[in-house]
């Protein structure tokens, strides 16, 4: 039972991580930048979601606010800052990094250093399953389902739609894609904003799974996101999923069975991947 319970917990954690890292991976593949501001979308969406949910008393309104706010933040960053540095990858990365300082400190200013707890869950999701002596929250189950559905959708979009093939082609050979008359700029904005919304979704639905949010959450989840794309490989849904689930389930299992390993699980896997399979589990090209 403890095994099943840990796996399920790990799956729900892994799904949150998948949503977090998906945007990072797409943006890396398409625009060639490591979006160091990605964790900020996660964090700010979580904060805004919690506050709106508390004000309106509705989990769902909070969710909507989280999605909209993270999308807007992504749009502002892309249009306002990154666009003007077109194709200057290092500059774009460092601008994002500057934003980490600014937005983290603004959050500290606005919300204080103490963790904000998760909003009250709607009654549909608040029960739990009994697995032997463990209680598995329905909510976590819902997170797994939502994550799996979105993952399926993304995989379908990547492999079976025109947009997906444009995105894949854009990662491999942007020159040719542009020569075919496709406006990659629009695709980039779309991918950036979409990735931000996914991060916002992860931030909001992830609070009950991962725990309260503090102003340094942005940085810590950024590290998780980067660990995932290193482990899974960049630019594919499969890779991101593999990395996220490996980290999620692995951390959860090591927590249950051999806790000293838990703290060190992610760096260890990352190191092994860097040594034996640089490029990640699913290596494009």
């Amino acid at each position, binding site marked *: 039972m403890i095994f099943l319970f840990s796996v399920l917990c790990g799956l729900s954690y892994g799904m949150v991580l998948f949503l977090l890292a998906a945007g990072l991976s797409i943006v890396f593949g398409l625009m060639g930048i490591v979006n160091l501001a990605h964790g900020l979308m996660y964090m700010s969406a979580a904060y805004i979601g919690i506050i709106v949910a508390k004000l309106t008393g509705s989990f769902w309104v909070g969710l909507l606010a989280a999605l909209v706010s993270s999308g807007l933040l992504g749009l502002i960053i892309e249009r306002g800052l990154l666009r003007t540095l077109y194709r200057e990858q290092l500059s774009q990365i460092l601008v994002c*990094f*500057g934003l980490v300082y600014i937005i983290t400190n603004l959050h500290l200013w606005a919300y204080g250093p103490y963790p904000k707890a998760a909003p009250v869950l709607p009654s549909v999701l608040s029960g739990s399953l009994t697995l032997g002596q463990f209680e598995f929250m329905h909510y976590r189950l819902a997170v797994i389902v939502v994550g799996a559905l979105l993952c399926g959708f993304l995989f379908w979009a990547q492999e079976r739609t025109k947009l997906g093939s444009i995105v894949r082609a854009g990662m491999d050979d942007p020159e040719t894609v542009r020569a075919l008359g496709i406006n990659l700029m629009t695709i980039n904005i779309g991918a950036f904003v979409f990735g931000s919304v996914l991060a916002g979704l992860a931030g909001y639905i992830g609070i009950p799974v991962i725990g309260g949010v503090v102003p340094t959450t942005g940085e810590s989840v950024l590290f998780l996101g980067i660990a995932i794309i290193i482990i899974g490989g960049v630019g594919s849904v499969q890779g991101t999923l593999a990395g996220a689930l490996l980290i999620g389930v692995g951390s959860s299992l090591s927590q249950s069975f051999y806790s000293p390993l838990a703290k060190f699980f992610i760096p260890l896997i990352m190191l092994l991947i*860097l*040594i034996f399979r640089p490029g990640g589990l699913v290596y494009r090209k």
Partner: protein
Amino acid sequence: MHRMLTMKLLKNRLLLHALTILILLFLIVAPPFLGKDIINILMKILVFGLAAMALDLVFGYSGLWSFGHAGIFGVGAYTVCLLMWHFSVYNFWLLAIAGIVAAVVAAAIFASLGLRMRGLYFMLTTFALGELVAAMARTFRKITNGTDGIWPMRYPDLGFGITLSHTGLFYFVLVVVIISGIILFRITKSPFGYSLQSLAENEVRARTLGYNTQLRRFIAFLISGFFVGLAGVLYVYTNGGINPPDAGMATSGLLMILVILGGVGTIWGGLVGSAVMNLLNYFISIIIPARWPIFLGVVFILTIFFARGGLYPRIANACKKAIGYGNTEG
């Protein structure tokens, strides 16, 4: 003709040299009359300047975007702190050798894992390894004292019964940093340094000319690791100790921005960038200490948008203009 050109170049550099000598004179004469906090700021400028100059060797000259240099810096600093804390080793020379050796070993690991990849992947790898160092420092609480860090708060014991005072430490750091800067600068002007630039610009051509490009990058990274490690060793004394964030991504990013602010590929630019950033930090922190990160972020972004060429080349050019010579490069 040649002589005239040399004369012109000499005159072009005159004002810059005069400025440098003035600053040096100030740094030599003033410390005994300065307050402890000002001396601390000056030492911080020098130590981070050294780390930034070392980063410039791989970042500016070899085209390697290392986002994990703070990790190497941290390895050097932590080695010193751990030896002091657990083994009560206080002799500066022993500690310095241990710290630098550890940093070079760390740099070798970073480089051997990272150099298999190029560009962004190199950056990701070094980022991950740097964070790994910070994570280790946070996690192994019994050894590293976790997030509290280790604070030996000591002055260097140079052996023969000599322990430096606060001002003495400043002069010591000044001399070490200037000598290191000169060595780094000479390296970039050596055949090895030019070959680094050539392989950053056109790898295929450099390889066709018979250079072992991979080995040269590796060596450049080790040299950089040596000086970053040295900066880490000095940091333990100037800062009083170290805690995990000093080895993490915030510091790595800071070093990168110092190089860009000062001027990529100029070596001395790192020192200029460090001076500007730390002085800004000092003055803004007097007014609103809690909001410094916001200013830091703004400086980051402004640097990227408006000062990408770096301040050092601009200062050098302005000096030339001021004495009536045109906007000559070099």
